[in-house]
């Protein structure tokens, strides 16, 4: 079974920004990052439905996932 999530990508990840992606039910945010071909180290802020989330958070149908590369700190 699959679910659909909406993905918003920012800055240098933004190729194909705002896309709808189909993932298997039970997939995590980290699985989605891998599916998009983004390396985990390229993720600075990851939020699901405007709440910051970890890579092991499971996704639900209809979630909106935003991925911003690291742009703070150092």
């Amino acid at each position: 079974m699959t679910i659909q999530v909406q993905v918003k990508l920012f800055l240098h990840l933004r190729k194909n920004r705002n896309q709808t992606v189909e993932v298997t039910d039970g997939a995590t945010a980290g699985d989605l990052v891998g599916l998009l071909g983004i390396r985990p180290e390229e993720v600075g802020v990851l939020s699901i439905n405007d709440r910051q989330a970890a890579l092991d958070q499971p996704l639900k149908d209809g979630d909106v996932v935003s991925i911003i590369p690291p742009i703070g700190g150092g």
Partner: protein
Amino acid sequence: MPYGYNGKILHVNLTDGSWEVEEPGEVWYRTYVGGSSLAAYCLLKHIKAGIDPLSAENVLVFACSVVTGAPLSGFSRYTVAAKSPLTGGFGEAEAGGYFGPELKFAGFDAIVFYGSASKPSYLWIHDGDVEIRDAANLWGKDNWETLEGLREELGDKRIRVASIGPAGERLIPFACVQNDLEHFNGRAGMGAVMGSKNLKAVAVRGKQKLEMADPDSVKEIRRWHNERFKVHPPNVGLSKVGTSGLVKGLNQAGILPTHNFKYGEFKGVDKIDAEAYHGTIYHSSGTCYSCAVKCKRRVALEDDAYPLDPRFGGPEYESLGCLGSLLEIDNLPAIARANQVCNLMGLDAISTGCVVAFAMECFEHDILTTEDTGGKALEFGDADAMLWVIEEMVNQRGIGKVLSQGVKKAAAAIGRGADKYAFHIKGSELPVHDGRGKTGMALGYALSPTADHVETPHDTAFAANVTNLLPLGILEPVQPLDTDAAKARYFSLGQKAWGLNNCYGICNFCSVPIHAMTFTRLVEAIKAITGWETSLFEILRVSERSNVMARIFNNREGFSPADDRVIRRWHEPMPDGPLKGQRIDPKEFQAAVEMYYEISGWDKDGKPTPGKLIDLNLEWLIDNDDPGTGETVSSSA
């Protein structure tokens, strides 16, 4: 008996070789806690206003905190502080590594140095014993030779050493203090203050166990914390590529300072980013005491022009920016080589890169010519010119000697309009984050006592959501490009949260607000270590108190609202890149600074009001103009 700390501050008089131990008591520790806060207390108490920072009257503080050395990731940092020879104001720099915890295990929470030794010396602390020893054979040595020399002399490979290189001995006002050649108290010229005191190094060794109030809870928090690093962005990135991962993101956001802060986008970024780094010069990862993140990088390269040795540290984001994009240098081995020279010689890589950028822009505008440089062209993009300037500065030759005073003083000495290209705030060169793309960061630069950026939130991280800031009462996403009252409020709240890490000696990369720690769990950790029934309210007050003390120190030294500013270039439109046309409106910025004063309980002159001082348990500072006692040791508050 106290938990988490020793209850002992070591006061060392280098002039007469005496030392004594002060035991200030729990109320004092709970008020001042450690790190930048404890240091600010000592500087206000013991430094007379107006002294020469490189005279024996300056006071130098090494400060751990009440939680330094607890077995939690990131709880390893210590502060070095003194009146800064670079700015003439409050000087402070933090470093991680193993030195801070070792000092705690050796029996002391902090060391306060007074006076100046008559000959090169070092301090040796081992299990509560203190000796001031001769360092004649170490003077002139680089930081690696110093470390090896001390290991041999003291017959112990496991000593921890904070030392200065030749740059500190030669009083270069942006000389740093380092430990293990991987960890640097980089900013504000603390290495020059050590040099002025003839203090080459502090060596420590301690076998004492840190007693904690509730070790089982600390253990549980440690397990939780270290698991979170594996899944919490951006800690995943820090573990994989260190801070080099920031290079590309900042460039794409148009805020990677380039060409002496003129541009925010660097065309050669692909040659210096995380991928290039790890595909070419990367050797291995390093870490700090008890830390699971392992963000440190070591580099290696067998190369005739730019040989790299993994013992001497690898460049962080700031070095990649300051010695790379800021100079338009895309030669990664050369950048790493320059970083190693800075590490061995004891120069702050941030100020060093900014000084070279200043020199290159002066050369571009014919303010400096080959007549000034003895024939050497200093053009942007020329890696060998960068290395040449660094060498001339270390060796105090020709134009290098002039430049080694920092951009503000060098511009004054050069004249000919050079100050137009001397970018500094309060006399300090800037870390590489373009304020035009994150105006909260610009406020941070302007209002930080040291013009640094580590007590400041990065607006760009909160443009999508503010989950991590909700406990502070920041409830709406942040607009990175706006400069208004809401931004002043966000900055004021954020500054307290970021600033607490320097007070408690905790690494930003392991702590609140954006890395793998929550406010709730941090409070639990501090409680489990110290046994204090503490709260988010109390730890934010510690941070605010620290900032206010540093502010009073600066006010006492003659700083005024005119110094709470950013560089000219950020008021000018970005000429190119993703943020083309973006500028910070000077009037809006000024209004935001004034709003910050009001929010903070400061008057129009930027001075904390008596009410604010009472609020923060700082009654003793109500007479702000009190010039300090200048006494060697005074009783605690």
